[in-house]
Each structure stands twice: as structure tokens, then as C-alpha cells.
């Protein structure tokens, strides 16, 4: 039982052994180069589970050792015989100490059975928490580094975009120049046109003024040429016309 407790607390988070560990442990023991065989003398992992046992504490191997010679009952016969022999020959004397020992062992077994699992859980939890904390630190570091690398790369990528800025600015300048040039062309054409339009307009005005003047002059002369005699005749003629019209109506 003790073994189980120790095993499960000592062998936490078992993993496949990474290759770099061989390098590290070889480098950690430079003075042990006595021979050229593997220098990894320590086991890398504690066994996670205890070996198989019978009757709660006797290793399975001790039983299988007898099987070839004696069959499956042999080990029990041997054990019983051994105990009987020791007692019979008074090599082991049965006294109050036997009872004492049995009680102590019983108490120990009881204690381990009763408090072992709780202690195991507590110890596992403590160590797991510690490991988690250290891994939190590690992951934070790794994340931060990765982010810094990404940020640097992004900044480089952004800097590559400066060509776009200069392209755009050059393009703007070219377009502005071209616009100015076109505006000049347009101004020349418009000015030439304006000058000619001006001449046409001057001619038009001149003609209109001449025409108006002529009309006025003719009207004036005609009115001047009318005599009072003609006017009277004209009115009489009008009255006559009105009379004929009223007679007809």
C-alpha cells in the first residue's frame, strides 16, 4: 500500500521520454565517462504501478518461481511448511511479541487503507497545481514571444506598403500636372473662341442698331409727310366705313 501511495505521488504526468533528455543528462554527468556504453544510469521514470502481488503482499514472481518444479500448490505448501518448521524447531518463538506485531501491522494496514487515498489525492493535487502554475508562466512567456514575433513581422509587412504611399503620391502629382496642362489647352481654345464670338457679337449689335435707326428714321419721315387734308379725308373715310358696317349688321 505504501508503495502504491509513493508511486502515484511520485510519478505524476508521465510522458514519453523526449529525445533531448538523453543529451541533457549526458551533458550533466561529464565525469562518468568510464566506458563507452550508455551513460544514462538512472531510470527516467518511477514505475507508475506496483507489481502484481498475492495475499496482498507476496510478489507474484515468488509463486511462479515454483511452478516448473511443484505445480500451482507448491508455493503454498512451501510457505506453510516453512512457517511450521520455524515454529516447530523454535527458531521463531511464539510469544506476546507475535500478537504485538500482528496488532501493529493490522493498525498500519488499517491506517493506510483509511487515509491513504485521501492523502494521495491531496498530494497529487498539490503537485499538479504547482506544475500548472509553472506551465502557466511558461505558456504566457511563449505566447508573449510569439506575439512579439508576429507584431514584428506585421510591422515589416506594413513597411513594405510604403511603396503604395509613394505610388499614390506620384500618381497624384502626375494627375495634377496633367490636369493643369489640360486646363491650359482649354483656356487657349476658349479664349480664341471668345475673341471670335466677340467679333460676331459686335457685328450683330451694329446691325441691330443700324436697323433700329433706319426704322425710326423712315417712320419719322412718313409721319412728317402726312398733310392735314389727307388726315381729314382719312377720318371721313373711316366714318363711312363704320356706317356701312353698322347698316349691314
Amino acid at each position, binding site marked *: 500500500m505504501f508503495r502504491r501511495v509513493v508511486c502515484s505521488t511520485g510519478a*505524476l*504526468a508521465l*510522458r514519453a521520454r*523526449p529525445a*533531448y*533528455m538523453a543529451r*541533457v543528462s549526458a551533458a*550533466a554527468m561529464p565525469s562518468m565517462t568510464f566506458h563507452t556504453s550508455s551513460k544514462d544510469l538512472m531510470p*527516467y521514470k518511477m514505475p507508475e504501478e506496483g507489481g502484481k502481488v498475492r495475499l496482498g503482499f507476496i510478489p507474484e514472481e515468488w509463486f511462479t518461481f515454483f511452478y516448473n518444479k511443484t505445480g500451482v500448490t507448491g508455493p503454498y505448501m512451501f510457505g506453510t511448511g516453512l512457517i511450521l518448521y520455524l515454529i516447530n524447531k523454535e527458531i521463531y518463538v511464539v510469544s506476546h511479541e507475535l500478537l504485538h506485531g500482528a496488532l501493529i501491522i493490522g493498525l498500519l494496514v488499517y491506517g493506510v487503507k483509511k487515509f491513504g487515498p485521501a492523502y494521495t489525492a491531496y498530494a497529487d493535487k498539490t*503537485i499538479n497545481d504547482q*506544475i500548472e502554475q509553472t*506551465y502557466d508562466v*511558461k505558456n504566457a*512567456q*511563449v505566447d508573449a*514571444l*510569439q506575439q*512579439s*514575433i508576429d507584431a*514584428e*513581422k506585421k*510591422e*515589416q*509587412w*506594413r*513597411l*513594405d*506598403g*510604403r511603396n*503604395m*504611399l*509613394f*505610388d*499614390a*503620391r*506620384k*500618381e*497624384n*502629382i*502626375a*494627375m495634377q*500636372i*496633367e*490636369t*493643369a*496642362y*489640360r*486646363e*491650359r*489647352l482649354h483656356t*487657349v*481654345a*476658349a479664349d*480664341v*473662341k471668345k475673341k*471670335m464670338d466677340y*467679333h*460676331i457679337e*459686335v*457685328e450683330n449689335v451694329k446691325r441691330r442698331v443700324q436697323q433700329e435707326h433706319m426704322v425710326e428714321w423712315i417712320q419719322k419721315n412718313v409721319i412728317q409727310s402726312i398733310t392735314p387734308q389727307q388726315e381729314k379725308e382719312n377720318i371721313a373715310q373711316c366714318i363711312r366705313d363704320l356706317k356701312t358696317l353698322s347698316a349691314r349688321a
Partner: protein
Amino acid sequence: MAARRVGQKFVDFAAFAERVPPNQRAQFLALKSKSEAIKAKFTALPEKPKAIDWAYYRKRVPVAGLVDKFEKQYSAVNVPYPKDTATAAVEEQEKQMDKLAADFKVESEKRIAEYEKELAQWTTMIPFEDMTKEEFAETFPETLEQRKKYPHWPHYPYWE
């Protein structure tokens, strides 16, 4: 003539916008709106002015020989192309910027290499649960001072 080239080039502002650092966003937007205004003005202006109908004017303009004279002069007139004084400055700036960018890139690569070295240290590290004290000291030499100050049992100076 330059007119062929001008305005043909396509500045991809959408792709450009992605590359603008957040702190230069306002400047970028100002440039963008300015460019768009310039472009609009440019595209609104036709390349050549409308051809003058000389025959129409020849019939109407009363001054003898004026139209012919104008036509001759108009076809002979050479409108000077505006001199480009700004592009040189921009190119100068570009050259400076290239230099700065190259410098920055070198520095940045250096920093990235540093980060990656550190990162490799973390990723190829022995898992914490498999570490011995000596390996921990080897992996994190910066904790040495503290370990000297507060040594663990059995207070054996293994850093020596």
C-alpha cells in the same frame, strides 16, 4: 505623351488601408480623400478641348482674315507642359524611407532572432516535472541569485 500613362495606374486603396498602422490612420484617410478629389477633377476634364468649328466662324466673323490668322496661330501654338518639381522631392523621400525601412528591417530581424532563440529555449525545455534542481539551474540561470540567497536543503553550493 504623359497623358497615356497618367490616370491609368490603379492605386489599390483597399489593400493599402490594411497596411496602414493604426496611428497613421487619419493621415491615410486625408491622403485618400485628397487623391479621390484629384482623380475626380482629372477624370472630369476631357483630354482635348472641343475642336473649333473654323468654317462656322469664317462665315460669320466680319473682320477679314482674322479667322484664318487665328486658325494658323492656334494650330501653331504650343502649350508648355507644366514642369514637374514635386516628384523629385517625393523620390528623395522614398529613397530616405527605403533606407530607414532597410535599417528597421535589419533591427527587426535581429529582434525576431532574439525572440525565436528565447522561444526555442522554452519549447525545447525539459518538462518541469522531469527536471532536477541542476537542470532547472541550467535552464534558468537568472534564478541563480535568488537560489544563492535562499538555498534549499542541503544548502550545498551546486552552482560552484
